[in-house]
């Protein structure tokens, strides 16, 4: 069993799995129960300004019988008094000294307010702070949450206020509801943040009831944007994580990142960590299944590490980051084509219709000799016309059979050059269609 311990800007955590600041980390009862079941840390549900909640608070995105592939909410920060929360944080930290307890904070944009709550909360013995600059609903309308995170100057300013008084690490939580997340990330760094966490939830309307015309979630006949989370947002989170993680400023300061957004299994966690997360935070999956999912997360990651000879998560954190590149640096000479294993093909012809209607019409339905006569009904099989295949990969993505369609790299003799290199060496090709056509003829690219 691999050692999953991580060092997050000096905070030692028994494993990288933390509860995100959210309903599962609302109380001492919940966080202590989570620690008993194996969670390495918890970011306490945000404490701060007084709030009143509404109901209903959640809307879900379900897909083909699978519940909650996405979850949105209009719940606010903790609706319990600050005093109660601080008392339970102290109690929890005392009971679980080895587990990480991060106190999430959000108050109105006044220096005294921020500094006062930081000083009070430090007395709980918590390991660090997370500044909630991301909540996209309810709080943002009052000038807090994402209203702050969306303006880099505010992010920097408030971080500075906090850093003046904080003696423990401070994580700045970033909102995804912004054009380029790198700007607030740099602002947090300039403000002196010890670490970053992302992503907070994404603005969303979950749906409309087509019988009643009500908005989901429905708050007494009305609805509005809420924060979107869950497995469906993972690709967005991974992108923003990699954007921040590969930013030279972030790399220079060596700030750790706590990643979140759709982490449901150890596999998701590994992906986040490969793109630079030191710890991962989880909410939706716990809201769906409870704290018990952490047992598999720990065991699954540990088995995965053992198989690869990793002894610490720090052996693989960020390992995929160097692969994050830009379109202009991709190899234009890399060519793959689809190959169909006809002995595995079940003849659903989904590849055929996808290629024919939505790609490049390079799959034909033909008679095929099979090795094992699995298919005795004489039906035509999909066959790729390799010389016309553009290697788009659509067919293999729609194929329902494992390893039936594989994308195989072939050598075409074309130059291995990138768009950027081409732009530099022969700019005329990238600006003139006639020259482009000429170049294609020259290197043997035929677009049918």
């Amino acid at each position: 069993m691999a050692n999953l311990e991580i060092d997050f800007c000096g905070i030692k955590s028994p494993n990288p799995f933390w509860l995100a600041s959210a309903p599962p980390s609302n109380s001492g009862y919940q966080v202590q129960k989570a620690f008993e079941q194996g969670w390495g840390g918890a970011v306490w549900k945000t404490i701060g300004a007084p709030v009143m909640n509404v109901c209903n608070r959640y809307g879900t995105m379900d897909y083909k019988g699978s519940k909650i592939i996405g979850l949105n909410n209009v719940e606010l920060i903790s609706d319990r008094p600050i005093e109660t929360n601080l008392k339970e944080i102290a109690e929890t930290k005392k009971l679980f000294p080895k587990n990480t307890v991060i106190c999430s904070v959000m108050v109105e944009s006044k220096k005294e307010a921020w500094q006062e709550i930081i000083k009070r909360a430090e007395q709980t013995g918590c390991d660090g702070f997370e500044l909630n600059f991301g909540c996209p609903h309810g709080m943002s309308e009052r000038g807090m949450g994402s209203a702050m995170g969306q303006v880099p100057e505010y992010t920097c300013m408030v971080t500075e206020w906090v850093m003046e008084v904080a003696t423990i690490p401070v994580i700045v939580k970033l909102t995804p509801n912004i054009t380029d997340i790198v700007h607030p990330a740099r602002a947090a760094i300039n403000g002196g943040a010890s670490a970053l966490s992302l992503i907070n939830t994404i603005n969303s309307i979950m749906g409309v009831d087509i019988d009643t015309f009500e908005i989901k979630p429905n708050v007494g006949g009305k609805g509005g944007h809420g924060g979107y989370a869950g497995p469906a947002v993972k690709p967005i989170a991974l992108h923003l994580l990699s954007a921040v993680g590969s930013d030279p400023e972030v790399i220079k300061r060596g700030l750790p990142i706590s990643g979140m957004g759709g982490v449901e299994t150890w596999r998701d966690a590994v992906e986040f960590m490969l793109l630079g997360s030191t710890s991962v935070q989880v909410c939706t999956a716990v809201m769906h299944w409870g704290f018990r999912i952490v047992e598999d997360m720990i065991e699954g990651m540990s088995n995965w590490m053992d198989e690869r000879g990793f002894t610490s998560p720090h052996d693989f954190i960020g390992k995929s980051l160097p692969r994050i590149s830009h379109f202009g640096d991709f190899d234009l000479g890399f060519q793959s084509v689809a190959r169909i294993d006809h002995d595995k093909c079940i003849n659903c012809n989904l590849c055929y219709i996808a290629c024919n209607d939505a790609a490049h019409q390079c799959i034909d339905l033909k008679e095929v000799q099979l090795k094992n006569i699995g298919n005795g009904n004489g039906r035509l099989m999909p066959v790729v016309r390799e010389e016309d295949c553009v290697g788009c990969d659509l067919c293999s993505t729609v194929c329902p059979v494992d390893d039936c369609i594989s994308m195989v790299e072939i050598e075409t003799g074309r130059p291995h050059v990138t768009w950027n290199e081409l732009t530099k060496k022969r700019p005329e090709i990238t600006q003139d269609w006639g020259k482009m056509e000429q170049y294609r003829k020259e290197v043997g690219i035929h677009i049918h």
Partner: protein
Amino acid sequence: MAEHYKPVKYLPWEMSLEERFQEYYPAYSEREAVLEANRCLYCHDAPCMVACPTTIDIPTFIRKISTGNVKGSARTILESNLLGASCSRVCPVEVLCEGACVLQHDHKPITIGRLQRYAMDYAQEKNIEFFQKGEPNGFKVVVVGSGPAGLSCAGELAKRGFDVTVLEKREWGGGLDTYGIVVFREPVEVSLGEVKMMEKLGVKFKFNTEVGKDVSFEDLVKEYDAVFVSVGLGAVPEMEIPGEKMEGVHDGLEFIEETKVKPLKDIKFGNRVCVIGAGNTAIDCATIARRLGSERVSIVYRRSEAEMPAYHFEYQFAMKEGVSFMFLTQPVEVIGENGKIKALKCKRMDLGQPDASGRRSPVEVPDSEFEIPCDMLITAIGQKKLTYITDKLVNEFGVKLIKGYISVDEKTNRTAHPKIFAGGDCIRSHGEASTVMAVEDGKIAANGIHVTLCGEGAHREPALASKK
């Protein structure tokens, strides 16, 4: 029945008689149906559709269930098969659509039959009328026999504006779907609902009207522009062994019929029952007897397991129901006491050379006679051809036969007589007799009649015009 079909828990001693004769598979709930529909890969040029004799666009109707467009799903089914409700229950899906499903091999095939039933039940419950009587085109067609072939032909013609009259010798329409399918597979209301659907399309039904008795073929051919003969087949033939007229010996089809038309508690059954034959009707009889309460039910068959005509899933079903099978056993005599059956005398058989049907023929084992004690004997060894009808058609109208079945042109289902068309079991000289085949026969004949009377290409337009 296929493994992945999970029937209701069957503990007969805990169930009332009525419960035992409820539909074997419970109806899908909305959630079950949508979940199952979502499993469908939505194949392009799907093998299931190719395997359906009526070429229902199965991926499309399943997709419509998954999107909540159940009404549209039902329309997709009925556009290809007006008897979609019966077919969803009685089709041998394991050898047709589900057998062809691409998920058959390493997964579980989609339960196409049950999904179709879900859509059909929805349409029935909501009382949706999908089609209307077509603009009258002035032609009159008579359909003889209201089984699935007759209903399908009548409905398709009515949609196209024909004036259609169906003659039915029995009290109710629907043919074997009404009278001959075991009630826990298809309740009688389903088939009668299909008769009603045709009535709403403007088809006129004359029940208790038998051709040859109440009305003559001569009059029909004279009075109507076309005649569709879908008379089916007759009763179970005699076994031609001594004692078969004895009390306690029953015709299998009549036995099944009782479950459809009588209160269950009024059906007489034996305690030790022998069923002769090993086709699907024999399986139905044996399982009915078990569900009525017979303690021992044996299927007696002169050939072996490999030659039995029942579908494999029917055979498995019967075994699950506690029916025992006596293969290579030839009945030779019904033994009685005071005119009532007491036992069935049989001989052991061996398999010899293949016969005309390609199956190895049974050969008697000498001195192997033995008796099976029984108080009821049910015969299910096929159906007699209705020679009184075919003779007349041959002698007076020049209709041709193949192996005693009416011979038709495959593309139009027209007989050798220009006005007489035929379909259903009475033309099934080869292939499997089934509801879905009969429905397709009716469609082919309706097209044939339409093209013959209205000209080439005529059949295309009305099908579209019938859409609401």
